[in-house]
Every structure is written in C-alpha cells, then in structure tokens.
C-alpha cells in the first residue's frame, strides 16, 4: 500500500456563486480531513461557502482521443443550440 495520502479534487461554491467550481486538489487521508484542508487551503474561511471533495480516483474523465466523436457533431448543427429564442428579462442566470 502506498504511504502517500490519496488525491482529492476540491469543488467550491462561493457565497454568491450558483454552482460548485473545481478549484484544485490536495492530499488527505480521508474525506473529513480533505474538507478541513480544503477550507484552509482554498476558502480562507469565507462564510457561506459549500465545499465538495471527491477522491480523484472516483472521477471518470473523457478521453482527449474521443474529442471528435463526442463534440464535433454538434458544431455543424445550429438547430441543436437553443439560441433562437428571445429570453425574458426576468430569467436570470441562465
């Protein structure tokens, strides 16, 4: 077994933020310490933030080699993009 602490990815939603954003990673022996450490390293303890930590090994990333297959087809089909509808003023944050 490796003596190195596992790697955790850290996602933070700031006080007025709408979604959790990936901010970085850190090493920690378990989830609780990962949260504690994330608070020290990434938030400077601003109040009202939410922190997610997830073991890096639990994240499945798409392969760069699949880029064309996954993303290319949508580029040439404008009707896939919902850009033809005027949005009402009241709808925020879309």
């Amino acid at each position, binding site marked *: 077994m490796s003596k190195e602490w596992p790697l955790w990815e850290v996602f933070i939603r700031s006080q007025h933020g709408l979604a959790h954003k990936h901010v970085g990673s850190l*090493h920690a022996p378990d989830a*609780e310490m990962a949260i*504690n450490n994330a608070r020290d390293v990434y938030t400077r303890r601003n109040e009202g933030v939410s922190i997610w930590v997830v073991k890096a090994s639990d994240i499945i990333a798409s392969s760069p080699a699949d880029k064309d297959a996954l993303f290319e087809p949508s580029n040439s089909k404008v009707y896939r993009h919902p850009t033809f509808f005027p949005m009402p003023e009241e709808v925020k944050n879309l």
Partner: protein
Amino acid sequence: MNEKFEYLLRQGDNALVLAQQLCQWTGKGPALEEDMALSNIALDLLGQTRMWLTYAGELEGAGRDEDKLAFLRDAGGFRNCLLLEQPNGSYADTLMRQFYFDTWHYFLLEALTNSNDQRIAGIAEKALKEATYHLRRSGDLVVRLGDGTAESHARMQAAADELWRFTGEMFIYDAVDEAMVAQGVAPASQPLRAAFLQHVAEIFDEATLEVPPLETYMQRGGKQGRHTERLGYILAEMQFLQRAYPGAEW
C-alpha cells in the same frame, strides 16, 4: 491595580505566546496541509491578540498600544498561562498543548460572549468562531493519533501526561479573576473546569487515551508573571527587532 487591564493582558498574552510558537512550525509540519492549518490557527490567535492588547492598552491609558505591549514587556510582564510557553516538542506535544488550550479557550470564550463588558463580549464572539474550528480540529487529530498506531498512541499519551500539570492554572483564580467574576465580566472557575474536564474525557475516551489523575499538583505562576525558563527565549526571538530599533515605524 487595574484588574480588567490585567485580565485583558492575560487573554492577549495567551494568544500571542501560542501564536508565536505555532509560527515556528511554518514549513516544518508533517504534511503540507497540516502546515497550512497550523499557520491559519496562528494567524487567528494573532488577530485575537491584537484585539485584546489594543483594548488593554486603551484601558490602561498610558499610551501603550498593541505593539508596545507585545514587544516591550519582558517575561515578568507577561501574563500568559504556563501551558502556552511549553516547547513545541514533537507534533504530538504541539497537538496536545493545542487541544488542552482550545478546550479551555472555547468554553471561556463562549462564556465571555455574555460578559457585561460589551467590548469583551464582542471580541469573544469574533474569537469564538475561530476557536470552534480550532477545537474541532485538534480534537479530531487527538482521536486520530490516540487511536492510531501503537507509536502515535504512546506519543499522545506521553504528551497528555506531560502537559497535564499545566492545565490547572487556567482554573486557579486569583484576585484579578475573582474581581472579574464579581463584576460580571468573566465566568466562574467551577463550571469552566467542569466543561473542560468533560470534553477532555469524551475526546480521550474516543482516542483510547487515559485522562491523567485529576488531583495532581498543578503548576502555576504564569498569570502573575512568574514563568518557566522558556518564555525568556521566546521573547528574545520575538522582540529582537523592536528592542534593537525601538520606536521604528514598520
């Protein structure tokens, strides 16, 4: 004697001496994340020091601000508890010192938020948020290491036993403390000690550590300016620049 001035010095000096000692860990922590956490705690305590000593200086009315109080008093003028000037030692020693202090500090600050001195209540309220985090963190680590390997358990138990004789002083009240209790500024000793003992017992139970014997001789003197030989060295390092260039702007 101005009791409230003395009482404020004690609060400020506790935080100042511990902050100074924690800073010595910077870059030497057992892991990068621990390093960050210790520095964060040191910064919290230094911020608290400034609030306590600034208020103390204003109350004294002798023109001493936070800097003069921190850098131009010698060991005999310091009012910190002896626990906080104990050497950093191993990480177990540092953590145990922190845990004992955080436990006492948390319950003290919680009570001080009800102080009839509004300014003290305000400082306590601000500091309590930080102390809540400190206590959660040090308690968590005491459990992890106490209930960790045979080696970590032995080191934590040794640190717990070694530092225990310095914990009593926080609950040994003198005329200054009694005056503060009488004026409704500070909480009484007994409930504070009971809360301290209960929390230590709970955490130690989870950490598989033995609580040292309650009725043991407790070292005292720090609050009256009678310190262990170590404080002089801490201050010599901390105050060097101000002593060499007194009154310099920085």
